[in-house]
């Protein structure tokens, strides 16, 4: 029993953090908002040099061969930077979905390209009515009637659905399933899609932790700098206590996300509960951080020019991706109220032994 990350894991996290601080500034995010594709090709290839898109790709296919316990810290950093890139779909969901689907030819063709930063994946999961960042994807992994299909983007017709966070582009996808596009069906497809949902929700939760941390940091910095009544507004308890509450919510979401990462990595059945708890706790922390950060800023926070909304919009949109609060609350409720599982003291890690 050791609930802590290794020095290697923390080192990789801080490497990615430093990189994004330099290469994914608010100016760059805004420039990508305004660009036609919304995608930073240079940024993506540099991320690939660090190994991020191929973190879960096996060594044999040129990836880092890591698991969710490593990736969760990197995704946190992508949230902290409000990174506009298809990292969840490619690194956290698409790559392991391809890997586990087990089609040798498809893996040989695509996984090395994913790891090298030469191919982007988009995932059309039944939990999400739109396919995020499909417009820049090379390969689409799409669910259809309980089956899983893979097709190149050129084989589908995409309709952009402009949405609240300009950094996440949503698409409706029209395509024709066929025997040639099908990569899994029946129980195999169901298991793959279930795993994809949990990986996606976990990844979103990890990003939400980073978003919440950044929102709190921005709000505290502003409260120190902005003066009214002759003193920094951060010296007023009315604001201090709101910010303290954000910190409480954030710090009690964090270990839930880390436990869920562990449960997904080792593939236990109770990962479903852990992931749902993580998704709820982290996205609610991010949503609350957004609300408080805006209030601390006052009118200036309500402007387009202020960078605050880079993270606020991310916080709002993450709430819906890979299952909203109602969906995840239902999954936890089923476990706690109907499952008959032991849920008291001493039972927290029962599935891990």
């Amino acid at each position, binding site marked *: *029993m*050791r*609930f*802590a*990350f*290794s020095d290697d894991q923390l080192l990789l996290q801080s490497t990615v953090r430093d990189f994004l601080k330099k290469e994914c500034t608010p100016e760059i995010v805004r420039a990508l908002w305004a660009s036609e594709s919304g995608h930073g090709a240079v940024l993506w290839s540099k991320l690939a040099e660090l190994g991020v898109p191929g973190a879960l790709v096996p060594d044999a296919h040129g990836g880092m061969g890591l698991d969710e*316990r490593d990736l969760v810290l990197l995704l946190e950093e992508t949230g902290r930077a409000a990174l506009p890139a298809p990292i969840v779909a490619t690194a956290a969901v698409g790559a392991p979905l391809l890997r586990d689907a087990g089609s040798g030819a498809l893996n040989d063709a695509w996984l090395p390209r994913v790891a090298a930063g030469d191919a982007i994946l988009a995932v059309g999961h039944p939990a999400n009515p739109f396919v995020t960042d499909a417009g820049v994807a090379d390969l689409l992994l799409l669910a259809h009637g309980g089956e899983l299909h893979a097709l190149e983007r050129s084989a589908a017709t995409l309709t952009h659905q402009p949405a609240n966070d300009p950094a996440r582009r949503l698409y409706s996808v029209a395509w024709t399933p066929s025997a040639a596009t099908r990569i899994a069906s029946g129980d195999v497809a169901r298991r793959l899609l279930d795993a994809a949902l949990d990986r996606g929700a976990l990844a979103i939760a990890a990003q939400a932790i980073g978003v919440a941390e950044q929102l*709190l940091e921005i709000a*505290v910095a502003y*409260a*120190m700098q902005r003066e009214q009544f002759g*003193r*920094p507004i*951060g*010296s*007023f*308890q009315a604001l*201090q*206590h709101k*910010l*303290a*509450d954000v*910190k*409480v919510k954030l*710090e*009690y*979401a*964090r*270990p*839930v996300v*880390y*436990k869920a990462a*562990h449960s997904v990595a080792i593939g236990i059945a109770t990962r479903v509960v852990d992931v749902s*708890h993580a998704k*709820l*706790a982290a996205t609610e922390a991010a949503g609350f951080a957004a609300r408080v950060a805006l209030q601390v800023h006052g009118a200036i926070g309500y402007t387009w020019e202020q960078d605050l909304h880079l993270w606020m919009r991310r916080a709002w949109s993450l709430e819906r991706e890979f299952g909203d609060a109602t969906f995840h*609350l239902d999954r*936890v*409720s089923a476990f*706690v*109220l109907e499952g008959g599982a032991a*849920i*008291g*003291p*001493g*039972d*927290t*890690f029962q599935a*891990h*032994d």
Partner: protein
Amino acid sequence: MDLSYTSTQQAFRAEARAWLTAHVPKAALRSFDTVEGAAEHRAWERILNGGGWAMVPWPVEYGGRGANLLEWLIFEEEYYRAGAPRRINQNGIFLLGPTIMEFGTPEQKARFLPKIASSEEVWAQGWSEPNAGSDMAAIQATARLDGDPRQPSSQYYVLNGQKTWASRGAFADWLFGLFRTDPASERHKGLTFVLVPLETPGVTVRPIAQLDGETGFAEVFFDDARVPVANRLGGESKGWNVAMATAGFERGLMLRSPARFQETARKLVALYRENEANAPANTREEVVRCWMHAEAYALDTYRTVSRLIGGGKIGAEASLNKIFWSELDLRMHETALRILGHRGDLLPEAPAATGVGAPALRVYNWLDGYLFSLSGPIYAGTNEIQRNVIAERILGLPRSF
């Protein structure tokens, strides 16, 4: 990261579970804030200590089991799971004990720790005064050093003043607290941490009835009460730092291990399931959220313990813990009372009160628990003070008070 227990830890859990199953009293004890209940709880502590389970993480020489903090968490889980009695000497075992371990002389450790572990000496807290509540540095009670300075070990402190809200004061043997040794000092400077036998001439204890009707705390008056200088913990006028360490233990890890809240959450789930047909619909989500929060508190504690075993220290983040568990405890009891409806208003002796408790080993009275949970956001530093601490010491905002 490895979230499985080692075979040693599993064996430790099995051993604790077997012992507790065999020894935990079958009938619930009366409240330890009553004369009879205090005696029952002292008797239970003797049994616990006899089995070597009273102070699991302490060194064997001080009456402990020499276990690490992870094993202590496991023991706590088993303790609450077994429905074992509350710890009458929590001030001693969870607050003063660790403080003596950190600041005490070898003589003080040998003198006090074994009797804390066995609860032969039950401790009361002596922080608050009528004019020093949240503003603890405003303490006015004094300790004047007296006696022959050529024989320092024969010197003593003469105590004067008043403490109040002294938890367990009504039934305790000793009191620890802060006294002003330097009359010219201001605020937190010039305070000294002193250990006082409550039977000392000049000490008067006056119990105070609490909101729940029991005398869980007391006023304590000092009128030229003399205690040996050997009863000083830490240096003279260095008491503030000692007290802050004690407060840290109270807010977080030691006193409020997660098992207590997980057990309440488990009971709440059981209560909801028993009453599902009649419970207000919106209590369902609350019950599930309470359970999630109790789990989150456990996960955070495991993470903290892993960090401490790796050499880390606990600092201001104990304030995060205190807000989280106290508000969770209150929320769980509020939810339970909403599920119970009118029955939640009944005292245990009401004929219609049957079934009000959860189907646990013994009936749990949610109304009693609710009244107790209301004190959580107040004691150990109000939650407003905790938010000030977080703002200033964790977020780096300017001091606001």
